[in-house]
């Protein structure tokens, strides 16, 4: 494979797509599939065939269109109209409308902030390309960044680009990606590994699932570039077994890439070999922690171990290992293609680029969005997210899942970046954002997350294993109306202890949801303890229960 061949594939594909006057893109990511989009796609194809319009109009399955709440979604090109909640019965009318006015009944308003205000880098191909065809990825410039890196750049200049771009780990920690790559490159050892962490365990987060389902080649290309930069020829994608569709598309993508020679041995006629294998997770949240993830790939229980040594020096089977999250890798091809200064022109001073968020909970536009770092939470929730359903009142937005915290109304105007969120007692996390209204009891929310961590604690270290159980016990007492003031003090002391003495990130961050709710919603805790009432009417006590 040489560049000309890549261009040839792109040319043929573009010609193929260009012969159609109209293209109907039907979302076939997991969300819309569960609303029946596969049947919709098949029916569109049948109707087009029935009318003999195969040369004029093309119906194809594409990745996530974002607005999951209104599925199944379709978009029509070239007009760019997006239709929501489309049923099989709407098909004839939609096809009729192709050469005329868009169908008002189903169309999303063209000025809708949800679509207009996003800044797409990772999601640039979403809703446009068929994730099961490598040709479409190549037609949009795919694998050219890998070619350029292999043919025109040294490993150090690749790393230099990543360093200069200011990219930070999108898995939650925000560690500078370029620095991590440098450490792995400099680590001694002939065998090195690249691992893509696709064990998206945070409940309420589905960014990585969407990326893998909608644009899998992007992640593979990012991993291959990373492999070249750090000197690794073997890689693993550790993906949750709960994401069967993502696994299926990844497998297909790897097979296609190997067949074309953009993965495998002697990529682009260079001496660079890169092999990617899939490893399935098995439902353990702790495996999102890098040392636990490595233990799991090695076939053991997902128990974390103390760091240092860090995986960058001593990782998989004792070899230097680069571990990055799905979204981090998905940013890499765009950085190499467009340059680091292009990337760093987005975002804030310390948080460059964009971030993908999964909006869920009590919000009108649930779904997947990508915004420049530094966008305010108010813009995300009330403009892009369309605010909260009528009749309810905004209470808090939870970021970072079980490791994060709640952000209240008064802080909605802060720009979203790693440092601002940490200052507020939450974290950026992997990108889950759950909006809560007055029907959520914050003590119960804290209990929910502690329950989660208690079940997911691997049991290796005492503070996390027993601390989570004791915290759960205290919160349970409070939500049952049996709490006393000393329980709140005990809870505070426990939070401090667990945070400071746990072995890995799971335990160290587990108190965050409790501390954050105790800080911002202390009145609710006090109401449970003093007045034995649950202001939100969630907890089953003598009053307000249901």
């Amino acid at each position, binding site marked *: 494979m040489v560049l000309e061949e890549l261009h040839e594939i792109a040319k043929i594909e573009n010609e193929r797509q260009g012969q159609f006057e109209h293209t109907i893109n039907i979302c076939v990511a997991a969300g819309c599939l569960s*609303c029946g989009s596969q049947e919709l796609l098949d029916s569109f194809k049948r109707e087009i065939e029935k009318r003999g319009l195969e040369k004029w109009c093309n119906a194809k399955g594409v990745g996530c269109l974002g607005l999951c709440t209104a*599925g199944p979604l379709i978009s029509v090109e070239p007009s760019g109209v997006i239709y929501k909640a489309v049923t099989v019965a709407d098909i004839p009318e939609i096809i009729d409308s192709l050469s005329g006015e868009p169908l008002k009944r189903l169309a999303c308003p063209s000025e809708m902030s949800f679509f207009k205000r996003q800044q797409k880098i990772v999601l640039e191909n979403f809703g446009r390309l068929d994730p099961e065809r490598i040709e479409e990825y190549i037609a949009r410039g795919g694998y050219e960044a890998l070619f350029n890196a292999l043919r025109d750049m040294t490993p150090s200049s690749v790393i230099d680009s990543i360093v200069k771009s200011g990219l930070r780990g999108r898995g939650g920690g925000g560690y500078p990606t370029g620095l991590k790559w440098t450490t792995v490159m400099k680590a001694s050892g002939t065998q090195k590994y690249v691992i893509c962490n696709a064990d998206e365990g*945070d409940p309420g987060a589905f960014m990585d699932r969407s990326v893998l389902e909608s644009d899998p080649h992007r992640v593979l290309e990012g991993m291959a570039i990373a492999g070249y930069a750090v000197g690794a020829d073997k890689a693993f994608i550790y993906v949750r077994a709960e994401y069967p569709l993502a696994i299926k598309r990844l497998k297909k993508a790897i097979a296609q890439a190997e067949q074309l020679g953009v993965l495998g041995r002697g990529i682009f006629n260079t001496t660079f070999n890169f092999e990617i294998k899939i490893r399935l997770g*098995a439902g353990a*949240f702790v495996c999102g922690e890098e040392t636990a993830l490595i233990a799991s790939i090695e076939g053991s229980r997902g128990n974390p171990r103390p760091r240092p040594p860090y995986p960058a020096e001593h990782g998989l089977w004792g070899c230097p290992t680069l571990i990055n999250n799905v979204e981090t890798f998905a940013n890499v091809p765009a950085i190499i293609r467009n340059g680091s200064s292009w990337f760093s022109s987005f975002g804030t001073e310390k948080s460059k680029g964009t971030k993908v968020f999964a909006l869920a909970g009590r919000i009108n536009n*649930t779904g997947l969005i990508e915004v420049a770092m530094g966008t305010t939470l108010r813009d995300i929730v009330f403009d892009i997210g369309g605010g909260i359903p009528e009749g309810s009142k905004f209470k808090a937005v939870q970021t970072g899942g079980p490791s994060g915290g709640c952000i209240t109304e008064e802080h909605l105007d802060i720009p979203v970046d790693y440092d601002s969120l940490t200052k507020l007692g939450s974290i950026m996390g992997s990108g889950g954002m759950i909006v809560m209204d007055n029907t959520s009891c914050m003590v119960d929310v804290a209990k*929910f997350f502690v329950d*989660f961590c208690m079940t997911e604690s691997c049991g290796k270290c005492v503070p996390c294993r027993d601390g989570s159980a004791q915290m759960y016990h205290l919160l349970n007492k409070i939500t049952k109306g049996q709490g006393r003031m000393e329980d709140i003090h005990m809870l505070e002391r426990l939070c401090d202890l667990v945070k400071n003495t746990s072995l890995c990130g799971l335990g160290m961050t587990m108190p965050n949801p409790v501390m954050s709710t105790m800080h911002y919603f202390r009145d609710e805790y006090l109401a449970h303890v003093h007045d034995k009432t649950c202001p939100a009417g969630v907890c089953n006590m003598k009053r307000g229960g249901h």
Partner: protein
Amino acid sequence: MMTQEETQPKRQEDRRLRIVDRTMRMHGNEPHALIETLHAIQESYGFIDLDMMRYVSERLGVPLSKVYGVATFYHFFTLKPQGEHTCVICTGTACYIGGAKAILDEIGRQYKISPGETTKDNKLSLLTARCLGACGLAPAVVYDGTVAGKQTPESVNKTLGRWFKNGS
């Protein structure tokens, strides 16, 4: 007729075992193939029993205690056979906010089972999942492998009722 009925399950057994063997072989029968192999067992048999654990332990040269440790550590693996139908309730944050608990309570009330249990007639297994990533459609429920979004206690009852009515 009798012989056909007798050989049918056996042939099926062989096929399932072949899938497991192939998985181990693909990983060079190395100890690190353990989790992948357990996935293969669960996928072909529906659950992982002690006999299969012993088998894997010998083939991969991994102590039985470790096989058991790994199989019980990961929530995805189940050591009990499932009922005819499975209903998985997502209990991720968005589904929790969206009312997953009310759904669980309703199923508990109707069918007298808690998560992880199977009805006495072996018809329905109730399971929970720690987020399916279908948060945009919360609360989500998986009926026999098919995800359905925006569920309510009423809609769940309707679907489950159909399984019981059909007698299948």
